[in-house]
């Protein structure tokens, strides 16, 4: 059991500048936590910190198991999906192959996912030839194929149209219903309202406000969160 996750005064720096922190959070093990905030507020860095792919310079990030074990049951989906120079099905099978599962078995499971995300006619095409929305769906399938307990998603629908966003959100909802914990960042307040059970509002690398989604969206406690939700410019 990974959760609860306790983050205490976590901080990361680059070239002497504090990118995120000190941040303290307590995340429990259900639903979706949506991280929102203006550009440069540290959303992506916080996701990487929690996932263990950004260096922690101060504070602690404590899963209920050691970080290495926690990493083994997590996946990460990037804002700009990284496509391996392989076919669609081989991209999806890749995480299983590196876990030592036989290639034929991995490809069979990948084919199931290819069908689920509606790319079955493109299964053997090079992944880089897919459209942005298709690539992001592939990235989701690749992230979910290992049945992770937690998936981090960094603005998974950035630059996608409404239809692609709806398809991706449907996949996310389906996985959440199956018990996968999502921690995602987004600039899309509509998406945040649709997906979030809990909201973390970041500002200048620090948690400015956090809490359950419904009260946060209906009555934010801080002026900055209120202004941000109203679409005002928040530094």
């Amino acid at each position, binding site marked *: 059991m990974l959760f609860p996750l306790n983050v205490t005064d976590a901080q990361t720096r680059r070239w002497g500048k504090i990118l995120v922190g000190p941040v303290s959070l307590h995340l429990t093990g259900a639903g979706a936590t949506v991280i929102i905030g203006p550009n440069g507020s540290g959303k992506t860095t916080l996701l990487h910190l929690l*996932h263990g*792919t950004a260096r922690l310079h101060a504070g602690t990030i404590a899963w209920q198991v050691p970080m290495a074990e926690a*990493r*083994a049951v997590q*996946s*990460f989906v*990037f804002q700009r999906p*990284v496509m*391996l*120079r*392989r076919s669609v099905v081989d991209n999806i099978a*890749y*995480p299983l192959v*590196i876990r030592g599962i036989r290639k034929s078995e991995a490809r069979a499971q990948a084919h199931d996912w290819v069908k689920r995300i509606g790319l079955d006619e493109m299964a053997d*095409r*090079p992944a*880089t*030839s897919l459209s942005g929305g298709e690539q992001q769906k592939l990235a989701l399938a690749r992230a979910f194929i290992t049945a992770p307990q937690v998936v981090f998603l960094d603005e998974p629908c950035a630059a996608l149209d409404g239809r692609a966003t709806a398809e991706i959100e449907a996949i996310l909802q389906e996985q959440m219903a199956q018990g996968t914990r999502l921690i995602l960042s987004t600039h899309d307040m509509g998406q945040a309202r649709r997906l979030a059970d809990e909201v973390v509002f970041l500002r200048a690398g620090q948690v400015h406000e956090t809490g359950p989604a419904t009260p946060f969206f209906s009555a934010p406690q801080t002026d900055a969160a209120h202004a941000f939700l109203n679409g005002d410019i928040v530094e």
Partner: protein
Amino acid sequence: MVDLWDGLTQAFWLVITLDRELAEIALRSLYVTLTALVIACLIAFPLAAFLAVRRFRFRRLIIAILNALMGLPPVVVGLIVYVLLSRSGPFGVLGLLFTPTAMIIAQIIIIVPLIASIAHQSLRDLWQEYHDLLISMNVSQGQKMRTLIWDARRALLTASLAGFGRGIGEVGAIMIVGGNIDNVTRVLTTAIALETGKGAFALALALGFVLIALTIAVNLMIHWLGQTEREGRW
């Protein structure tokens, strides 16, 4: 101009009549260079991948040295291999001097830096693309290297073709370590050098045209096998 024409005509007849000596020399050229190429690729690709994914002290120095070694003078390589394999050298007991094996060793030393340097450029670029994804997936160093080599296989083909080109056209080192012995270590390039020395320019040119034709044929075959330049491929 007359020599060129004579050379072309002679090359044509040598090929058409399936000249036994020519076939033997051409096959030996291919054997030596292709063997050296396969072994060099087995060394150079993992080395290039290692340099792409691992950060360690003196890494940049090693890359700089590797790049510098691309211009390694073959004659010097030949001389060093000669000294190492000569009867009084440390490996003299193996009796490899003036054998095709000695020629293969010399060619490996010459083409490994070239293949590794070109491969490193491709793998480094691919690593930049893959870095975040593979780190997030907790992929081991060995898996990273294998993934890069497999996914960059068509770019690595170009590196190996460059190695083949350098190896098949090489004369200085293999002349020294092979000795250009008839029926034993004579290959196309050393045969050309010999015929030129004898003043038989037409025959030397004929062998040269055969060498060029052979090089083009092997390149085309590797491209075909590698399925490069096909739609929807990398």
